[in-house]
Protein backbone atom coordinates (compact mmCIF):
# COMPACT_ATOMS: atom_id res chain seq x y z
CA UNK A 1 0.00 0.00 0.00
CA UNK A 2 1.01 3.59 -0.56
CA UNK A 3 0.47 4.48 3.08
CA UNK A 4 -0.47 2.58 6.20
CA UNK A 5 -4.25 2.61 5.90
CA UNK A 6 -4.93 -1.08 5.49
CA UNK A 7 -6.95 -1.16 8.69
CA UNK A 8 -9.38 1.54 7.61
CA UNK A 9 -13.00 0.44 7.44
CA UNK A 10 -15.28 1.73 4.68
CA UNK A 11 -17.01 4.11 7.08
CA UNK A 12 -13.62 5.41 8.24
CA UNK A 13 -12.73 6.22 4.65
CA UNK A 14 -16.01 8.05 4.11
CA UNK A 15 -15.49 9.94 7.35
CA UNK A 16 -11.98 10.89 6.32
CA UNK A 17 -13.09 12.14 2.91
CA UNK A 18 -15.79 14.20 4.61
CA UNK A 19 -13.12 15.72 6.87
CA UNK A 20 -10.94 16.55 3.87
CA UNK A 21 -13.87 18.18 2.09
CA UNK A 22 -14.64 20.28 5.16
CA UNK A 23 -11.03 21.42 5.66
CA UNK A 24 -10.04 25.01 4.83
CA UNK A 25 -8.39 25.68 1.50
CA UNK A 26 -5.13 26.80 3.10
CA UNK A 27 -4.77 23.49 4.92
CA UNK A 28 -5.55 21.50 1.78
CA UNK A 29 -3.01 23.46 -0.25
CA UNK A 30 -0.36 23.17 2.43
CA UNK A 31 -0.82 19.41 2.91
CA UNK A 32 -1.79 18.55 -0.65
CA UNK A 33 1.01 16.08 -1.36
CA UNK A 34 0.44 14.16 1.86
CA UNK A 35 -3.33 14.20 1.36
CA UNK A 36 -2.95 12.91 -2.20
CA UNK A 37 -1.05 9.90 -0.88
CA UNK A 38 -3.45 9.43 2.01
CA UNK A 39 -6.48 9.42 -0.27
CA UNK A 40 -4.80 6.98 -2.63
CA UNK A 41 -4.05 4.76 0.36
CA UNK A 42 -7.64 5.05 1.57
CA UNK A 43 -8.86 3.90 -1.84
CA UNK A 44 -6.51 0.93 -1.63
CA UNK A 45 -7.91 0.12 1.81
CA UNK A 46 -11.42 0.08 0.35
CA UNK A 47 -10.44 -2.46 -2.31
CA UNK A 48 -8.56 -4.54 0.24
CA UNK A 49 -11.76 -4.72 2.30
CA UNK A 50 -13.55 -6.07 -0.76
CA UNK A 51 -10.88 -8.69 -1.43
CA UNK A 52 -10.59 -9.83 2.17
CA UNK A 53 -14.38 -10.10 2.43
CA UNK A 54 -14.21 -12.47 -0.54
CA UNK A 55 -11.56 -14.64 1.08
CA UNK A 56 -8.70 -13.36 -1.04
CA UNK A 57 -5.26 -12.15 -0.06
CA UNK A 58 -4.79 -8.66 -1.52
CA UNK A 59 -2.00 -8.53 -4.03
CA UNK A 60 1.14 -6.61 -3.21
CA UNK A 61 1.69 -5.99 -6.90
CA UNK A 62 1.18 -2.82 -8.90
CA UNK A 63 -0.06 -1.86 -12.35
CA UNK A 64 1.50 1.17 -14.00
CA UNK A 65 3.20 1.71 -10.64
CA UNK A 66 -0.01 1.82 -8.64
CA UNK A 67 -1.14 -0.87 -6.18
CA UNK A 68 -4.68 0.52 -6.44
CA UNK A 69 -4.97 -0.56 -10.06
CA UNK A 70 -3.60 -4.02 -9.27
CA UNK A 71 -6.06 -4.40 -6.41
CA UNK A 72 -8.89 -3.42 -8.72
CA UNK A 73 -7.85 -5.92 -11.35
CA UNK A 74 -7.71 -8.62 -8.70
CA UNK A 75 -11.17 -7.64 -7.42
CA UNK A 76 -12.66 -7.74 -10.90
CA UNK A 77 -11.24 -11.15 -11.78
CA UNK A 78 -14.24 -13.45 -12.25
CA UNK A 79 -16.56 -10.59 -11.30
CA UNK A 80 -17.04 -8.27 -14.27
CA UNK A 81 -19.52 -6.09 -12.41
CA UNK A 82 -16.61 -4.82 -10.33
CA UNK A 83 -15.36 -3.07 -13.45
CA UNK A 84 -18.03 -0.46 -12.77
CA UNK A 85 -15.45 1.15 -10.49
CA UNK A 86 -12.46 0.70 -12.82
CA UNK A 87 -12.52 4.25 -14.14
CA UNK A 88 -13.19 5.56 -10.64
CA UNK A 89 -9.91 3.97 -9.53
CA UNK A 90 -8.06 5.39 -12.51
CA UNK A 91 -9.56 8.81 -11.78
CA UNK A 92 -8.18 8.63 -8.24
CA UNK A 93 -4.70 7.92 -9.62
CA UNK A 94 -5.12 10.73 -12.15
CA UNK A 95 -5.99 13.27 -9.46
CA UNK A 96 -3.19 12.09 -7.22
CA UNK A 97 -0.76 12.67 -10.07
CA UNK A 98 -2.18 16.10 -10.85
CA UNK A 99 -1.93 17.14 -7.20
CA UNK A 100 1.72 16.09 -7.16
CA UNK A 101 2.39 18.07 -10.33
CA UNK A 102 0.37 21.16 -9.52
CA UNK A 103 2.19 24.13 -8.04
CA UNK A 104 -0.57 26.75 -7.86
CA UNK A 105 -2.13 26.77 -4.40
CA UNK A 106 -5.86 27.21 -5.08
CA UNK A 107 -5.67 24.55 -7.79
CA UNK A 108 -3.97 22.12 -5.40
CA UNK A 109 -6.78 22.52 -2.88
CA UNK A 110 -9.42 22.05 -5.57
CA UNK A 111 -7.70 18.91 -6.81
CA UNK A 112 -7.55 17.46 -3.31
CA UNK A 113 -11.29 18.05 -2.94
CA UNK A 114 -12.01 16.37 -6.27
CA UNK A 115 -9.86 13.40 -5.28
CA UNK A 116 -11.71 13.12 -1.96
CA UNK A 117 -15.06 13.09 -3.76
CA UNK A 118 -13.95 10.30 -6.05
CA UNK A 119 -12.54 8.25 -3.17
CA UNK A 120 -15.82 8.72 -1.34
CA UNK A 121 -17.69 7.40 -4.40
CA UNK A 122 -15.47 4.33 -4.50
CA UNK A 123 -16.10 3.73 -0.79
CA UNK A 124 -19.86 4.12 -1.25
CA UNK A 125 -19.88 1.80 -4.26
CA UNK A 126 -17.81 -0.95 -2.66
CA UNK A 127 -19.56 -0.48 0.67
CA UNK A 128 -22.90 -0.89 -1.08
CA UNK A 129 -21.73 -4.04 -2.81
CA UNK A 130 -20.49 -5.47 0.46
CA UNK A 131 -23.73 -4.63 2.24
CA UNK A 132 -25.81 -6.34 -0.38
CA UNK A 133 -23.46 -9.32 -0.67
CA UNK A 134 -26.00 -11.50 1.06
CA UNK A 135 -28.59 -10.55 -1.54
CA UNK A 136 -26.44 -10.95 -4.60
CA UNK A 137 -24.39 -8.75 -6.85
CA UNK A 138 -24.87 -5.05 -6.92
CA UNK A 139 -24.46 -3.46 -10.28
CA UNK A 140 -26.16 -3.31 -13.65
CA UNK A 141 -23.90 -5.80 -15.42
CA UNK A 142 -24.11 -8.23 -12.58
CA UNK A 143 -24.51 -11.94 -12.55
CA UNK A 144 -27.86 -13.24 -11.25
CA UNK A 145 -29.28 -11.17 -8.48
CA UNK A 146 -30.31 -13.10 -5.43
CA UNK A 147 -29.15 -16.25 -7.16
CA UNK A 148 -29.06 -18.31 -4.00
CA UNK A 149 -32.47 -17.04 -2.96
CA UNK A 150 -33.83 -18.00 -6.38
CA UNK A 151 -32.27 -21.47 -6.20
CA UNK A 152 -33.80 -22.03 -2.78
CA UNK A 153 -37.22 -21.03 -4.07
CA UNK A 154 -36.93 -23.43 -6.98
CA UNK A 155 -35.87 -26.28 -4.71
CA UNK A 156 -38.93 -25.72 -2.57
Amino acid at each position, binding site marked *: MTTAHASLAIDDVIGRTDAV*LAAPETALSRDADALAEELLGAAEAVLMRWLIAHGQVPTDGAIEGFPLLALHRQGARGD*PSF*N*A*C*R*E*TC*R*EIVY*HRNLIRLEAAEPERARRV*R*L*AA*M*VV*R*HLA*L*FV*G*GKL*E*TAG*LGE*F*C*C*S*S*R*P*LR*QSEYSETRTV
Partner: protein
Amino acid sequence: MTGKYEKVAYYPGCALEGTGHAYNRSTKAVGEALGLEVVELKNWNCCGAMEVKNVDPKLQTYLSARNLSIAQDMGFDTVMAPCNGCYHNLKKAEYDLARDADSKEVNARLSSKAGHRTYEAGKVETIHALDWIKHSIGEEGIRERVRNSLSGLKVANYYGCMYTRPRHIFPEKDKGPGSESTAKPHFMDDILEAAGAENVEYPLKTACCGGAHALSDSDTSTKLVLNLLTTAEACGADVIATECPTCHTGLEMHQVRAEKVLGRKTKVKILYFTQLLGMALGLSPRKVGVHENFSDSRDLIREKGLA
Protein backbone atom coordinates in the same frame (compact mmCIF):
# COMPACT_ATOMS: atom_id res chain seq x y z
CA MET B 1 -23.47 17.51 -42.30
CA THR B 2 -21.53 14.39 -43.18
CA GLY B 3 -24.55 12.41 -44.31
CA LYS B 4 -23.17 9.40 -42.50
CA TYR B 5 -26.09 8.97 -40.13
CA GLU B 6 -28.61 11.26 -41.80
CA LYS B 7 -31.30 8.56 -41.75
CA VAL B 8 -31.09 5.77 -39.21
CA ALA B 9 -33.31 3.14 -37.70
CA TYR B 10 -34.46 4.18 -34.25
CA TYR B 11 -34.70 1.84 -31.30
CA PRO B 12 -36.19 3.77 -28.37
CA GLY B 13 -36.44 0.81 -25.99
CA CYS B 14 -38.86 0.43 -23.11
CA ALA B 15 -37.50 3.15 -20.84
CA LEU B 16 -38.09 5.82 -23.44
CA GLU B 17 -41.74 4.91 -23.53
CA GLY B 18 -41.99 5.26 -19.75
CA THR B 19 -39.92 7.23 -17.27
CA GLY B 20 -37.55 8.34 -20.01
CA HIS B 21 -40.26 9.72 -22.28
CA ALA B 22 -38.70 13.19 -22.18
CA TYR B 23 -35.54 11.68 -23.68
CA ASN B 24 -37.59 10.10 -26.48
CA ARG B 25 -39.40 13.35 -27.18
CA SER B 26 -36.25 15.48 -27.09
CA THR B 27 -34.20 13.06 -29.21
CA LYS B 28 -36.83 13.10 -31.95
CA ALA B 29 -37.24 16.88 -31.70
CA VAL B 30 -33.49 17.45 -31.94
CA GLY B 31 -33.24 15.10 -34.91
CA GLU B 32 -35.97 17.01 -36.70
CA ALA B 33 -34.37 20.37 -35.90
CA LEU B 34 -31.04 19.13 -37.23
CA GLY B 35 -32.53 17.67 -40.39
CA LEU B 36 -31.82 14.09 -39.35
CA GLU B 37 -34.38 11.37 -39.86
CA VAL B 38 -35.15 8.51 -37.52
CA VAL B 39 -37.41 5.63 -38.47
CA GLU B 40 -38.62 3.61 -35.51
CA LEU B 41 -38.15 -0.14 -35.71
CA LYS B 42 -41.43 -1.88 -36.43
CA ASN B 43 -42.66 -4.20 -33.71
CA TRP B 44 -39.46 -3.90 -31.69
CA ASN B 45 -39.05 -5.84 -28.47
CA CYS B 46 -37.37 -5.19 -25.12
CA CYS B 47 -33.59 -5.70 -25.30
CA GLY B 48 -33.72 -7.65 -22.06
CA ALA B 49 -32.58 -4.62 -20.06
CA MET B 50 -30.60 -5.60 -16.96
CA GLU B 51 -32.81 -8.53 -16.06
CA VAL B 52 -32.89 -11.18 -18.80
CA LYS B 53 -29.15 -11.80 -18.71
CA ASN B 54 -29.63 -12.98 -15.16
CA VAL B 55 -31.96 -15.69 -16.41
CA ASP B 56 -30.09 -16.60 -19.61
CA PRO B 57 -27.48 -14.38 -21.30
CA LYS B 58 -28.06 -16.08 -24.66
CA LEU B 59 -31.74 -15.29 -24.53
CA GLN B 60 -30.73 -11.68 -24.01
CA THR B 61 -28.49 -11.90 -27.06
CA TYR B 62 -31.40 -13.22 -29.09
CA LEU B 63 -33.72 -10.42 -27.95
CA SER B 64 -31.23 -7.80 -29.13
CA ALA B 65 -30.50 -9.75 -32.32
CA ARG B 66 -34.19 -9.75 -33.19
CA ASN B 67 -34.21 -5.95 -33.09
CA LEU B 68 -31.12 -5.86 -35.30
CA SER B 69 -32.78 -8.24 -37.76
CA ILE B 70 -35.81 -5.92 -37.93
CA ALA B 71 -33.50 -3.03 -38.80
CA GLN B 72 -31.97 -5.16 -41.53
CA ASP B 73 -35.41 -6.10 -42.87
CA MET B 74 -36.32 -2.42 -42.98
CA GLY B 75 -33.26 -1.79 -45.12
CA PHE B 76 -31.08 -0.06 -42.54
CA ASP B 77 -27.43 -0.68 -41.79
CA THR B 78 -27.46 1.54 -38.69
CA VAL B 79 -29.67 1.53 -35.63
CA MET B 80 -29.54 4.35 -33.12
CA ALA B 81 -30.30 3.58 -29.47
CA PRO B 82 -30.33 6.55 -27.08
CA CYS B 83 -30.63 4.41 -23.94
CA ASN B 84 -27.32 3.24 -22.48
CA GLY B 85 -28.80 -0.11 -21.49
CA CYS B 86 -30.20 -0.80 -24.97
CA TYR B 87 -27.03 0.49 -26.63
CA HIS B 88 -24.93 -1.77 -24.40
CA ASN B 89 -27.10 -4.82 -25.06
CA LEU B 90 -27.19 -4.40 -28.83
CA LYS B 91 -23.42 -3.93 -28.91
CA LYS B 92 -22.97 -6.95 -26.67
CA ALA B 93 -25.17 -9.07 -28.94
CA GLU B 94 -23.14 -7.95 -31.96
CA TYR B 95 -19.95 -8.92 -30.16
CA ASP B 96 -21.22 -12.30 -28.99
CA LEU B 97 -22.74 -13.27 -32.34
CA ALA B 98 -19.41 -12.59 -34.02
CA ARG B 99 -17.45 -14.74 -31.60
CA ASP B 100 -19.55 -17.21 -29.66
CA ALA B 101 -20.83 -20.32 -31.45
CA ASP B 102 -23.36 -21.11 -28.72
CA SER B 103 -24.86 -17.64 -28.96
CA LYS B 104 -25.13 -18.01 -32.73
CA GLU B 105 -26.80 -21.39 -32.40
CA VAL B 106 -29.36 -20.19 -29.84
CA ASN B 107 -30.08 -17.10 -31.91
CA ALA B 108 -30.60 -19.18 -35.06
CA ARG B 109 -32.85 -21.65 -33.25
CA LEU B 110 -35.04 -19.01 -31.59
CA SER B 111 -35.21 -16.89 -34.75
CA SER B 112 -36.35 -19.91 -36.74
CA LYS B 113 -38.94 -20.79 -34.13
CA ALA B 114 -40.21 -17.20 -34.10
CA GLY B 115 -40.30 -17.17 -37.89
CA HIS B 116 -38.02 -14.27 -38.71
CA ARG B 117 -34.63 -13.72 -40.31
CA THR B 118 -31.64 -14.84 -38.25
CA TYR B 119 -29.48 -11.83 -37.62
CA GLU B 120 -25.85 -12.29 -38.55
CA ALA B 121 -23.11 -10.20 -36.98
CA GLY B 122 -21.76 -7.34 -39.05
CA LYS B 123 -24.95 -6.43 -40.91
CA VAL B 124 -26.16 -3.55 -38.72
CA GLU B 125 -24.12 -1.03 -36.78
CA THR B 126 -25.46 0.11 -33.41
CA ILE B 127 -24.80 3.71 -32.45
CA HIS B 128 -25.71 5.89 -29.49
CA ALA B 129 -27.55 9.20 -29.81
CA LEU B 130 -24.23 10.89 -29.01
CA ASP B 131 -22.53 9.14 -31.97
CA TRP B 132 -25.48 10.07 -34.16
CA ILE B 133 -25.21 13.81 -33.52
CA LYS B 134 -21.43 13.98 -33.20
CA HIS B 135 -20.77 12.15 -36.47
CA SER B 136 -23.64 13.43 -38.58
CA ILE B 137 -23.66 17.11 -37.56
CA GLY B 138 -20.47 17.63 -35.61
CA GLU B 139 -19.47 20.60 -33.48
CA GLU B 140 -19.16 23.00 -36.38
CA GLY B 141 -22.60 22.06 -37.65
CA ILE B 142 -24.08 22.61 -34.21
CA ARG B 143 -22.42 26.02 -33.86
CA GLU B 144 -23.95 27.06 -37.17
CA ARG B 145 -27.42 26.02 -36.02
CA VAL B 146 -27.46 27.42 -32.46
CA ARG B 147 -30.16 30.04 -32.04
CA ASN B 148 -30.20 30.27 -28.26
CA SER B 149 -26.71 29.70 -26.93
CA LEU B 150 -26.22 27.82 -23.67
CA SER B 151 -23.68 30.50 -22.80
CA GLY B 152 -23.40 31.02 -19.06
CA LEU B 153 -24.71 27.55 -18.28
CA LYS B 154 -22.26 25.37 -16.38
CA VAL B 155 -22.73 21.71 -17.17
CA ALA B 156 -21.43 18.51 -15.58
CA ASN B 157 -21.62 15.82 -18.24
CA TYR B 158 -22.57 12.48 -16.73
CA TYR B 159 -22.31 9.39 -18.93
CA GLY B 160 -22.90 6.63 -16.40
CA CYS B 161 -21.12 3.30 -16.41
CA MET B 162 -22.87 1.47 -19.28
CA TYR B 163 -21.89 3.77 -22.13
CA THR B 164 -18.28 2.61 -22.17
CA ARG B 165 -18.27 -0.70 -20.37
CA PRO B 166 -17.06 -3.32 -21.05
CA ARG B 167 -14.55 -1.76 -23.41
CA HIS B 168 -14.21 -4.78 -25.68
CA ILE B 169 -17.76 -4.50 -27.05
CA PHE B 170 -17.03 -0.99 -28.35
CA PRO B 171 -14.31 -1.58 -30.94
CA GLU B 172 -14.82 1.87 -32.47
CA LYS B 173 -13.90 3.65 -29.24
CA ASP B 174 -10.35 4.53 -28.12
CA LYS B 175 -9.17 4.92 -31.71
CA GLY B 176 -7.47 8.26 -31.20
CA PRO B 177 -8.58 11.71 -32.36
CA GLY B 178 -12.24 11.87 -33.34
CA SER B 179 -13.19 8.68 -31.54
CA GLU B 180 -14.85 8.34 -28.17
CA SER B 181 -12.78 7.52 -25.10
CA THR B 182 -13.83 4.82 -22.68
CA ALA B 183 -11.69 6.28 -19.90
CA LYS B 184 -12.79 9.87 -20.33
CA PRO B 185 -15.78 10.07 -22.66
CA HIS B 186 -16.22 13.48 -24.25
CA PHE B 187 -18.85 13.37 -27.03
CA MET B 188 -21.51 14.96 -24.82
CA ASP B 189 -19.00 17.55 -23.65
CA ASP B 190 -18.14 18.34 -27.28
CA ILE B 191 -21.76 18.66 -28.37
CA LEU B 192 -22.88 20.87 -25.49
CA GLU B 193 -19.78 23.04 -25.66
CA ALA B 194 -20.55 23.62 -29.34
CA ALA B 195 -24.02 24.71 -28.19
CA GLY B 196 -22.38 27.32 -25.96
CA ALA B 197 -22.31 25.55 -22.59
CA GLU B 198 -19.39 25.76 -20.21
CA ASN B 199 -18.43 22.23 -19.24
CA VAL B 200 -17.07 21.86 -15.73
CA GLU B 201 -14.48 19.26 -14.89
CA TYR B 202 -16.53 16.41 -13.45
CA PRO B 203 -14.49 13.53 -12.04
CA LEU B 204 -17.42 11.11 -11.75
CA LYS B 205 -18.63 11.13 -15.35
CA THR B 206 -18.52 7.33 -15.67
CA ALA B 207 -19.14 6.42 -12.02
CA CYS B 208 -21.97 4.10 -11.02
CA CYS B 209 -25.30 5.71 -10.06
CA GLY B 210 -26.65 2.58 -8.40
CA GLY B 211 -29.30 2.49 -11.10
CA ALA B 212 -30.14 -1.20 -11.05
CA HIS B 213 -30.88 -1.00 -7.35
CA ALA B 214 -32.77 2.26 -7.38
CA LEU B 215 -35.69 0.52 -5.75
CA SER B 216 -34.33 -2.73 -4.28
CA ASP B 217 -31.44 -1.12 -2.39
CA SER B 218 -32.54 2.48 -2.23
CA ASP B 219 -30.19 3.58 0.54
CA THR B 220 -27.05 2.70 -1.40
CA SER B 221 -28.43 4.29 -4.55
CA THR B 222 -29.34 7.45 -2.65
CA LYS B 223 -25.85 7.75 -1.18
CA LEU B 224 -24.21 7.20 -4.58
CA VAL B 225 -26.51 9.70 -6.27
CA LEU B 226 -26.03 12.23 -3.48
CA ASN B 227 -22.27 12.00 -4.02
CA LEU B 228 -22.78 12.54 -7.77
CA LEU B 229 -24.95 15.57 -7.07
CA THR B 230 -22.76 17.17 -4.40
CA THR B 231 -19.66 16.61 -6.52
CA ALA B 232 -21.34 18.29 -9.48
CA GLU B 233 -22.24 21.23 -7.27
CA ALA B 234 -18.72 21.40 -5.87
CA CYS B 235 -17.46 21.52 -9.46
CA GLY B 236 -19.66 24.55 -10.03
CA ALA B 237 -22.31 22.91 -12.22
CA ASP B 238 -25.77 24.42 -12.65
CA VAL B 239 -27.00 21.27 -14.33
CA ILE B 240 -26.04 17.64 -14.82
CA ALA B 241 -26.49 16.57 -18.43
CA THR B 242 -27.46 12.94 -18.89
CA GLU B 243 -27.67 10.50 -21.79
CA CYS B 244 -29.13 7.45 -20.05
CA PRO B 245 -32.75 7.17 -18.86
CA THR B 246 -31.83 4.92 -15.94
CA CYS B 247 -29.17 7.30 -14.66
CA HIS B 248 -31.42 10.29 -15.28
CA THR B 249 -34.38 8.86 -13.41
CA GLY B 250 -32.13 7.65 -10.59
CA LEU B 251 -30.57 11.09 -10.19
CA GLU B 252 -33.97 12.75 -10.12
CA MET B 253 -35.62 10.30 -7.74
CA HIS B 254 -32.73 10.06 -5.34
CA GLN B 255 -32.20 13.81 -5.30
CA VAL B 256 -35.66 14.02 -3.75
CA ARG B 257 -35.03 11.01 -1.51
CA ALA B 258 -31.68 12.36 -0.29
CA GLU B 259 -33.48 15.42 0.96
CA LYS B 260 -36.26 13.44 2.61
CA VAL B 261 -34.22 10.62 4.12
CA LEU B 262 -30.78 12.12 4.63
CA GLY B 263 -31.77 15.77 5.01
CA ARG B 264 -29.35 16.80 2.24
CA LYS B 265 -30.78 19.27 -0.23
CA THR B 266 -29.01 19.79 -3.52
CA LYS B 267 -29.91 22.41 -6.08
CA VAL B 268 -28.18 21.15 -9.22
CA LYS B 269 -30.67 20.47 -12.03
CA ILE B 270 -30.85 17.36 -14.18
CA LEU B 271 -31.58 17.50 -17.91
CA TYR B 272 -31.04 15.16 -20.83
CA PHE B 273 -28.35 16.42 -23.18
CA THR B 274 -30.95 16.34 -25.96
CA GLN B 275 -33.11 18.74 -23.95
CA LEU B 276 -30.23 21.18 -23.55
CA LEU B 277 -29.23 20.86 -27.19
CA GLY B 278 -32.84 21.23 -28.31
CA MET B 279 -33.28 24.48 -26.39
CA ALA B 280 -29.99 25.73 -27.84
CA LEU B 281 -31.40 24.99 -31.29
CA GLY B 282 -34.38 27.21 -30.47
CA LEU B 283 -36.89 24.56 -29.44
CA SER B 284 -39.20 25.38 -26.55
CA PRO B 285 -38.75 23.66 -23.18
CA ARG B 286 -42.12 22.00 -23.74
CA LYS B 287 -41.09 20.70 -27.15
CA VAL B 288 -38.15 18.89 -25.53
CA GLY B 289 -40.22 17.59 -22.63
CA VAL B 290 -38.81 19.61 -19.74
CA HIS B 291 -42.27 19.42 -18.13
CA GLU B 292 -41.96 15.62 -18.09
CA ASN B 293 -38.87 15.63 -15.87
CA PHE B 294 -39.18 15.05 -12.13
CA SER B 295 -36.40 17.57 -11.57
CA ASP B 296 -37.91 21.01 -11.96
CA SER B 297 -35.44 23.10 -13.90
CA ARG B 298 -37.86 25.72 -15.19
CA ASP B 299 -36.46 28.53 -13.03
CA LEU B 300 -32.93 27.84 -14.24
CA ILE B 301 -34.10 27.70 -17.85
CA ARG B 302 -35.84 31.07 -17.50
CA GLU B 303 -32.88 32.55 -15.66
CA LYS B 304 -30.52 31.50 -18.46
CA GLY B 305 -32.85 32.83 -21.11
CA LEU B 306 -33.57 29.45 -22.65
CA ALA B 307 -37.36 29.61 -22.34
